Structures are given as structure tokens and as C-alpha cells.
């Protein structure tokens, strides 16, 4: 459990993560902001309920490893890292600019708290398998979380890793898959049908939960169950999320994999998010 800010509610954490992400999006005028808004609740629960880390020491050996396989979701993870005080808030205005520690696609060498270089999709889960094996070798009790996307279910490497995690019974590995039903070329199930997803992971030997990824109470329960499940098997939380969650006029856009947002719309989006402030 983190040692900071227990007085701030998880919905408020999620709201702030959305706000940080919108402010970064505003710097660029466009980006993967719909994914960031959609995954904000998952990140709030991950960083302010489930995982253990030390903001002042991002490479502390006792931390849980949180891998971002989907490099283009970096804007979302930066927002969480800022909220977790691993990255200073004033750096969000450098997002995607020259000399920034917050490049458009997440890379381990650039950003404190960024465990791996994502972006070439389908890498995270396999790296997580290696880290989970290594942590067991070291006798560590830390968990490895890998956040990946429904689009990454298209990649064969994801399934090599899924089979391996089941085969090695990696009970220290928790996969989180963001099913937001949108890929670069359109709705995910039109691009390649990955359903029935829960049954697939179950068949690969995983402990499967599927939740509304924008329901914080459901997420808290799912993360708790994933950690405390007694079975010797890897765990997966399939999170059905809504693209651009929290900003209705962006939610309504049909094609929102990569959003272009007008200057006045950023102001409006942030106003909508701020209206939900509770603390």
C-alpha cells in the first residue's frame, strides 16, 4: 500500500489523473487522450489501492512492478505517475516536447517509474513472465502487473506469454487488459475477434475476472481478489472501459483512437472534469 494521501478518495484520484492527462493532451493539441480517460479509474486503483512503491525511490527493490506494454498509453501512465508524485507535476507541460522526460510513447530510459519500453505491441506480457520468474528466483513477494490492450490480443507473442505464465503457474503475475473496443483501424472486434476472451485465458490456466473498468468499487474488489487468490496460477483482470470516459462530447466521437481536439474543447473538457472535484 502506498504511504501517501490516504485521505484522498479513489474517484478523486481518478479525476485528477484525467485532469493531468487532459493538460498534457492540450500541450500537443491531439493524442491518445480517449485511452487515458478510459483507463484512469484502473490506474487510480492500481496506484492508490493495489500496488506498493516508494515515490522517492522508483527502483526500490521491494516495489510491485507495473509494466505499460501499450507505449502510446504513456500519457495515461504519466498522469498516474504525476499523481503518485513519482514525476513532478510541472513536467506535464513538457509532454511530447524536445528534451522532455515524457515522450509520446513510453520508454524505460526516459521516465522514472516507467519499467519497460512499450510501443512495439505484444512485448509487455512476455517481459512480465521473465520478471515474474526472476522475482520468484529471488524469493521476492512483489507482484508484476502488466497493463495491455485489447489490440495487443491480436499479437501472437501475447499468447506465447499467456501460455507460458499458465505453464509456470505464475501467481505473482497480474495481467490487466483494457478492452476499450477501439483500435487504429476501427472497433476491436471488427479488426480481429478475440472473444470469448475470459474463456481463452481460463483455458490457458489463468484466474480470470471481468469487470467494468470504470467502476472503482468493482476494480478494488477485482484487484484484491487477484492478489489474494490462493490458486497457483497467473491472474487476469479484463477491464471493459469506455473510451474518453468522463468527457461526454469526446465519448460521443465515433473514431477516437487518436483524437484531435480544438483549443476551446480542451478548456471545456477540463471544466467538465473539474466540475466533478470532491476534494
Amino acid at each position, binding site marked *: 500500500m502506498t504511504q501517501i494521501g490516504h485521505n484522498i478518495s479513489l474517484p478523486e484520484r481518478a479525476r485528477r489523473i484525467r485532469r493531468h492527462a487532459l493538460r498534457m493532451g492540450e500541450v500537443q493539441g491531439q493524442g491518445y487522450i480517449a485511452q487515458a480517460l478510459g483507463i484512469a479509474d484502473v490506474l487510480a486503483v492500481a496506484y492508490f489501492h493495489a500496488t506498493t512503491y516508494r515515490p522517492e525511490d522508483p527502483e526500490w527493490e521491494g516495489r510491485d512492478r507495473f509494466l505499460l506494454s501499450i507505449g502510446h498509453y504513456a500519457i495515461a501512465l504519466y498522469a498516474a505517475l504525476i499523481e503518485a508524485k513519482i514525476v513532478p507535476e510541472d513536467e506535464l507541460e513538457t509532454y511530447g516536447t524536445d528534451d522532455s522526460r515524457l515522450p509520446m510513447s513510453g*520508454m*524505460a*530510459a526516459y521516465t522514472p517509474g516507467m*519499467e*519497460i*519500453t512499450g*510501443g*512495439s505491441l*505484444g*512485448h509487455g*506480457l*512476455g*517481459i*512480465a*513472465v*521473465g*520478471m*515474474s*520468474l*526472476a*522475482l520468484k*528466483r*529471488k524469493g521476492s513477494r512483489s507482484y508484476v502487473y502488466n497493463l495491455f490492450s485489447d489490440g495487443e490480443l491480436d499479437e*501472437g*507473442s501475447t499468447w*506465447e*506469454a499467456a*501460455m*507460458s505464465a499458465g*505453464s509456470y503457474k505464475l501467481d505473482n503475475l497480474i495481467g490487466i487488459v483494457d478492452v476499450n473496443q477501439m483500435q487504429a483501424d476501427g472497433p476491436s472486434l471488427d479488426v480481429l475477434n478475440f472473444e470469448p476472451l475470459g474463456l481463452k485465458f481460463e483455458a490457458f490456466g489463468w484466474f480470470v475476472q471481468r469487470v467494468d473498468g470504470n467502476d472503482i468499487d468493482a476494480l478494488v474488489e477485482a484487484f484484491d481478489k487477484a492478489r489474494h487468490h490462493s490458486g497457483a496460477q497467473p491472474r487476469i483482470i479484463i477491464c471493459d472501459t469506455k473510451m474518453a470516459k468522463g468527457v461526454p462530447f469526446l465519448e460521443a466521437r465515433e473514431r477516437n483512437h487518436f483524437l484531435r481536439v480544438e483549443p476551446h474543447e480542451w478548456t471545456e473538457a477540463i471544466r467538465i472534469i473539474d466540475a466533478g472535484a470532491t476534494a
Partner: protein
Amino acid sequence: MRRSKYERPAHLIGNSGGPRLTTSAMIASIAGADQPTRPAPFGHALSALADKEDRIVGLSADLAKYTDLHVFRAAHPDRFYQMGMAEQLLMMSAAGMAREGFQPWVTTYAVFASRRAYDFICMAIAEEMLDVKIVCALPGLTTGYGPSHQATEDIAMFRGMPNLTIVDPCDASEIEQAVPAIAAHRGPVYMRLLRGNVPLVLEEYGYRFELGKAKLLRDGRDTLLISSGLMTMRALEAAEELRKDGVDAGVLHVPTIKPLDEATILAECAKQGRLVVVAENHTVIGGLGEAVAATLMRSNVRPAAFRQIGLPDAFLEAGALPTLHDMYGISTAKVADRIKGWLDG
């Protein structure tokens, strides 16, 4: 050009041809009949090193037996990880283990590491300068099973990958020395592996392996052969053949392809009046030959002539290894013949 698959073998429809060799096992021995060899030098060297270094783990993609990693598996069963026939996962999981402080040694065939797992080596391992050692059997033309197993372009692919060190050892003693040297180097390394009963060639030259160093094994006035891997063995044998014909041939062994020991190569090539021949068990595209040529051009060093001995830019045929080595000009006899031809021409 191979004949049509609808034409029957020539000897079945006529009287042509003599005895025909058989392809033999997947990994044909490259040792000559009376050549001294040592068994599984990589497996034994890694096992011995792992006795001293706890950080070493070994990973296989269902080819431990064929990459000599089975020796390590027997010696250190708790440090051996079977990742299944999944080369992408092999590289990803090695990256994860290296991130946690271990030094993974992963083995598979060179074709699978280069062609199938390239992105995973590149982005999960090399981009982060992770300490993963990739050791691959069947480099170049060392199997008669055809293009599916012949890694004729692995060096061309891997030379383009930043941060990656590339090693192509010649014999058993060099593999034994290369293993601890590669372990001591912090960062990703790709090593081409000769496995099974591997010839002993270099000891009589008083040779010691140093990562990043080219070494002159013999000097010669008329021609200089620059070579790596098993072609150094061929170059040394060819030099002996040439000596009988009064040709004085030197051999510069370049086991580290990247980073290239440009200083030694330039110094040797600057000695005037010699034909320089680069011999490699690899396509002539993108390997040691082109690396040496570019080095010479950049530094304005001009030997009397420059030639390449290597595999053609083609998918190679299946068959017996001696037949194929002759066909593609990398057998000792063909190397010697071609050099004589160039010197006479």
C-alpha cells in the same frame, strides 16, 4: 538454379554422376575426419562459469540438446528455463530476467533468433542495453536442411541493431574463451555457435580470444585472408594449400564482427601489394566483407585488390554439407582455387 521438381534425379534417368552424399543429421559435423575436437564446448564453458556466477541462467526454446545447453541444464537444473518453442517469448522473458539482475543466456537456432525474434531482441533487449547473451546454432551454411534452417543473413540483420555485440568464433577453444569474456561484457551479445564435436584449430597458433580484437594468425606476402567463424578454419587450411603452390597467404581472424576492430584491419590492409580476401560463412550482403570494404573506403586504404568469399544472395539448396560447401565456394579447396585464380588473373 535448381531444376524443376517435376524432373527426376539425373542418375535415375541416365548414367551420370558418381556416388552421392547424404544430407545426414540436422547439424552435420564440420570437423574433418582426423581433426581433433572437443564436445559441446559452449555447454561446458557456461556450466563452469555458472559454478562461480549465480546471476547466470539458461533459457531454451525447445532446442537445448541442439545448442549444447543440455550440458548446462544437467549441471544447473534449477537455473535452466524451458520456454517452449516460442522464440518471441524466449527473448521477452530473457529481457524480464535481465531487468531483475540476472544474466540470461538464451539459445536457439540463428534463423529463429534473427528472422522471428528480431523485434523482441531489438526493443525488449538491445534498446535497453540489457545483459542478455544470445547464442545461436546453425550459423550460415552449417546444415543441409535448406533455407528454413540456414541462417545466411543473420549478421546482416544484427549488424543493424544498435548496442548489440556480434561474435563469430572459429573453434572449440575460442568458444571456451569467449563465454567468460562475453559474460564480463555488460550488454547484449549475439554469438554464432558451433556445437557438438567442435574442431580444435587455433591452439597451435598461440591464439587468445579478446572481445573486440582481430588477431593475425599467420602473415603472408601475397594475400591476406580476413575471416570469421568456421571460415577462419577454411582460410588457415587454404593458406596451407596455397603455400604448396608457392603462394604466401596471411590470415587475419576477426571473431568480433561488431564492434569491428577497424584499427587492426586497416593496419594489415595498408601493407602494400596484397590481395585482400574476406571469407565469411554468410551472404556476401551485409556481413564481414561489406563491413571491411566500407572501413577501407572510409579510411582511403586501398589494397592491391579486394575480393569476397561468401554465400550468394540466394536461398541455398538442401543436400550434404560438403557438397554444398563446394557448390557455394566455401570449402577449403574452393577457397584456395579462387584465390589462385585471382592472383593469376
